């Protein structure tokens, strides 16, 4: 019997599912990631002379569930033109029947990997707001992501933030997605956990965004108003959450500007604190001016 070294066994595992494209346009170079639905390869587009990524279905034979999800993902991505969403260039079927689509190759790392390098609350919030803005755009286009979590967010080399894995997304009112239970524990809305995915509304993404906000802020002491924003996202009843991601982004913007947020009713003391924080330079200038006037008046009285 033929004896195979570890290296040959490894190579056979790789080449056994190597994509067999029926055109010379794309040269497959290396696998860069593998998920439950598909495997992503780095490839070279010989026509446009640029690197691209090709996502190939993991279903070796026609499989309605997986193929439908990959096809749906390609369509969702093609429909959503936004800096936070990877653009799709092409789609097709391999010689062996597997579906694939071609997209921009993103150089970077997942949010799960990048998070420890985000040192300050401001850094973490900046990334989170980009995610929430992308989800807001998707919702405005009638798309619910349904699986927002740190591994599905990519942070690029130049700080660009991309929301990935739209394979279980739902095109509200247009395409009924497959009746599968979707989401990631810890980021999954209660209504999705109950298996009510067919009626998933934007509120499910709000819940996931709240979990993501709590996750990204980590163990550090979180200001009360920011905690209130996360808590409002994570309400068990979808009606108690933000109506959509745009409202969440608006509240976060108010928080970052030092203004009151809708998720939290400020006490008088907190309002005074907010006012002071916002106008502290002016307050200090006026205080310094008054102090100087008082000192001048004092010294003028001394004979």
């Amino acid at each position, binding site marked *: *019997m033929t004896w*195979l070294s570890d290296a040959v066994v490894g190579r056979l595992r790789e080449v056994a599912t190597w994509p067999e494209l029926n055109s010379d346009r794309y040269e497959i170079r290396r696998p860069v990631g593998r998920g439950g639905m598909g495997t992503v390869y780095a490839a070279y587009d010989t026509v446009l002379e640029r690197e691209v990524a090709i996502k190939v279905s993991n279903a070796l034979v026609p499989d309605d569930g997986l193929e439908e999800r990959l096809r749906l993902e390609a369509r969702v991505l093609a429909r959503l033109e936004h800096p936070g969403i990877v653009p799709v260039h092409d789609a097709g079927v391999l010689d062996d029947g597997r579906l694939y689509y071609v997209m921009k190759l993103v150089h970077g790392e997942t949010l799960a990997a990048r998070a420890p390098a985000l040192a300050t609350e401001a850094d973490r919030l900046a990334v989170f707001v980009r995610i929430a803005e992308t989800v807001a755009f998707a919702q405005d286009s009638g798309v619910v992501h349904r699986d927002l979590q740190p591994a599905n967010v990519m942070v690029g080399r130049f700080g660009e933030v991309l929301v990935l894995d739209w394979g279980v997304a739902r095109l509200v009112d247009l395409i009924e997605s497959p009746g599968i239970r979707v989401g990631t524990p810890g980021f999954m809305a209660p209504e999705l956990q109950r298996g009510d995915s067919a009626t998933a509304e934007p509120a499910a993404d709000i819940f996931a965004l709240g979990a993501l906000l709590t996750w990204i802020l980590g163990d550090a002491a979180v200001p009360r108003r920011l905690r209130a924003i996360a808590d409002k996202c994570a309400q068990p009843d979808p009606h108690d959450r933000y109506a959509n991601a745009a409202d969440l982004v608006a509240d976060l913007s108010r928080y970052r500007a030092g203004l009151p947020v809708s998720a939290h009713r400020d006490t008088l003391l907190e309002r005074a604190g907010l006012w002071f924080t916002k106008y502290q330079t002016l307050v200090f200038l006026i205080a310094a001016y008054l102090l100087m006037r008082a000192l001048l008046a004092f010294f003028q009285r001394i004979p």
Partner: protein
Amino acid sequence: MVAYSFAFMRFPMTRRSVLERIQEGDPDLRRAAFGDLTVAYWRPSYRYLRLHWRLSPETAEDVVQAFFTTAFEKGYVEKYDPAKAKFRTFLRTCLDRFVQNTRQAERATKRGGQAMLLSLDFPGAEHELAAYPALVVDDADRFFHDETIRALFARTVDAMRDAFTREGKPQIFDVFARHDLHPSADATYATVAADLRLTTAQVTNHLHAARRRFRELALASLRDVVATEDEYRAEARELFGVEISPERSRTGV
């Protein structure tokens, strides 16, 4: 766009797992299933005994013979519970216990003492061990897993070579051997094409055909080393990162 490939239809439409066939109750079916099981596992078992248990070649050979015949006679496999462990882990654990019991009795099964002697290529397996100099087995389960996959792929490569030869297409296997199996450091489609006096397009097509055949045969063989449909799908996912739906897995894909 290309039409779907239905190459998988070449396989029998109903391939049942080893466990299902052994549990069927038909003695002939049980014997055949056990034969498949032995073919799939005797080599990994032999290497495991030689490298993990550090048995001598003669003792390892005796234990392999005795283990598979005893497993057949005493119905080891029928006792497997999928809820408790993977079939491969179960089999390795049985083998461990068998070795311990044999040692405790201080009487390794006498050579030729079994009623049924399996015809297995022990000299060949021993020769292959030369490729494992000073190997230390830290993780027994991992080692047994890797050896099972190595043996599965080796059987697949042999079956593939035979199939292409039988079909009068040995050149397809030659391309596969030169590019994927035993490539030289500078092997490219162009160098393989030049070596075999083919065009680059022919090399591309041959490689596609060979890789697909390898995948199909390997997945078909995989059924003989697992016990249940769930395990088959999980192993396919682990082996090639592919998903096989429950309905499709019944067709032997």
